[in-house]
């Protein structure tokens, strides 16, 4: 076979792969067809990789095979993590994705410089690609570190942060512009990569845990677009398509997360987010009502509709399986149990859904905010487990609150509100929650897993 025929066969495989990618995303529209989507994605990617190994440009196989084996050896355990660790795994995979895109861009730059055939247009593409890729690498690593709690989850801020961060980003862009005029200044290129890496750190350090869903989506989008830009550099359509699809996905998710937190998208694009200026307001000791597991069990037993509001605390306490036991017990007694999922509940888009699905809670019991908010007035009990800011009524009326305007779950409209919480410490945004002081609210103090266990135990003691 001539190299030309081979190349055409490979290109044909890439076209088929692209169709596979598009179908994979199309079939992800519903849980029923989603498995088929993953399968076709796997086949498409596998075909593309195998076809590439036959590329006439590839002459040495030994090291490539070793690199593929190392990749698989790292990837398999990363694919087997617990569902509670999915957010940090995702952040890490954004870092890996961006790393490969960035270093291929770097390799292309040096090869192009060596051969003296780098056009200005290519230099712009490589420059943008390497800047976005590099900042995504360090940004994602910081995000993963925060999610894994190696780094502090609290936002780290200082005065004039936005100005400093933007100056650093501008420096990277200016260095790129110098390179467009003088591509041969390799030390300028190295400086540009370094500045972009620093900017990635500066972009994510000020972000608090509660803003992680937005940040992860944004980093996803950056990782995708850097791959698409790399496709432009390398003249590879399959990369352009896959990168653009990934970038668009991250972009849409960022927009959804922004809307769910009532932040403008420009605000996020310029990295000026996550900086809820928390004034350490000393809240006077307001009285709260608390209840025991026994009392809670009795009330749950005699109710008709219970809406559970899960949050990140559920994942931290690993209480999803206990929650399923509660769901089973109550369902058997004829109680209608539903789950209200706020778009930013947890640490990444859809985090709560995966957690509850893992515990075998049927997905038709999981409701999005807009679909269930009207049901709260009919609910006998709203049971809040590990969620905080997304239930705070202050978002509706308190103009001074940092979360004012954020769409919330109307938990306060249920006849009784129960909140399982360790203590009265405010949430990640550091805002006191009015919900806890309502007359209809009962605080159930304790670890979510332990408390749910005792409720289930009490329930089985109560005769239906």
């Amino acid at each position, binding site marked *: 076979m001539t190299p030309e025929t081979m190349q055409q066969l490979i290109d044909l495989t890439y076209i088929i792969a692209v169709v596979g990618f598009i179908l994979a995303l199309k079939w992800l529209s519903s849980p029923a067809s989603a498995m088929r989507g993953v399968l076709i994605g796997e086949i498409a990617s596998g075909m593309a990789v195998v076809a590439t190994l036959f590329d006439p440009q590839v002459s040495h196989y030994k090291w490539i095979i070793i690199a593929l084996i190392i990749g698989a050896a790292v990837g398999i355990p990363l694919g087997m993590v617990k569902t509670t660790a999915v957010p940090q795994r995702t952040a890490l995979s954004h870092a890996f994705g961006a790393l490969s895109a960035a270093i291929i861009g770097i390799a292309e730059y040096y090869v192009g410089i060596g051969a003296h055939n780098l056009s200005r247009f290519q230099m712009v593409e490589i420059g943008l690609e390497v800047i976005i890729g590099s900042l995504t690498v360090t940004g994602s690593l910081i995000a993963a570190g925060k999610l894994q709690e190696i780094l502090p989850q609290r936002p780290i801020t200082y005065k004039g942060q936005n100005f400093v961060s933007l100056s650093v980003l501008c420096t990277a862009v200016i260095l790129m512009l110098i390179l467009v005029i003088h591509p041969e200044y390799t030390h300028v290129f190295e400086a540009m990569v370094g500045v972009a890496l620093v900017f990635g750190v500066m972009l994510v350090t000020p972000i608090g845990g509660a803003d992680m869903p937005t940040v992860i989506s944004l980093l996803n989008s950056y990782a995708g677009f850097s791959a698409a830009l790399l496709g432009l550099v*390398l003249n590879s359509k399959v990369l352009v398509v896959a990168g*653009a699809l990934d970038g668009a996905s991250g972009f849409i998710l960022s927009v959804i997360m922004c809307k769910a937190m009532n932040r403008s998208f420009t605000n996020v694009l310029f990295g000026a987010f996550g900086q809820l200026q928390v004034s350490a307001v000393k809240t006077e000791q307001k009285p709260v009502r608390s209840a025991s597991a026994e009392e809670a069990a009795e009330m749950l037993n005699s109710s008709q509709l219970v809406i559970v509001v899960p949050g990140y605390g559920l994942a931290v306490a690993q209480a999803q399986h206990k929650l399923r036991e509660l769901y089973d017990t109550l369902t058997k007694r004829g109680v209608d149990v539903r789950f209200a999922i706020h778009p930013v509940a947890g640490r990444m888009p859809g985090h709560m859904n995966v957690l509850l699905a893992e515990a075998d809670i049927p997905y038709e019991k999981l409701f999005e905010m807009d679909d269930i908010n009207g049901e709260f007035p009919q609910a006998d009990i709203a049971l809040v487990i590990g969620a905080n800011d997304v239930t705070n009524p202050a978002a509706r009326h308190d103009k001074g609150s940092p979360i004012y305007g954020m769409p919330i779950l109307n938990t306060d409209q249920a006849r009784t509100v129960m909140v399982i919480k360790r203590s009265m410490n405010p949430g990640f945004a550091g805002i006191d929650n009015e919900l806890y002081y309502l007359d209809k609210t009962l605080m159930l103090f304790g670890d979510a897993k332990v408390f749910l266990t005792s409720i289930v135990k009490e329930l089985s003691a109560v005769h239906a």
Partner: protein
Amino acid sequence: MEHVDLSLIFVFILSGFLGVELIKRVSPLLHTPLMSLTNALDAIVVVAAIIIAGRHETRLSTTLGLIAVAASFSNMVGGFIITDRMLHMFKTGKAKKQ
């Protein structure tokens, strides 16, 4: 004025719009698997990494290419495994009883 091939920019814009339309239709229920799946698909960067590593142009480009092969292939393998695992968890009430 140097010659600039804009055909790939067309591909980029069209895929971007297609992506937006496709992803809007994905159920919010599946947003986490969506992110891990797009991550796995994005790992197709591995094909570019294989070419860079396989061309053997300079020692630097080969080394960087090999690191990129390992990094992106780990995303491909890990991304598909975890997406598959998560989607297996989503069951309806009827399926659960069976």
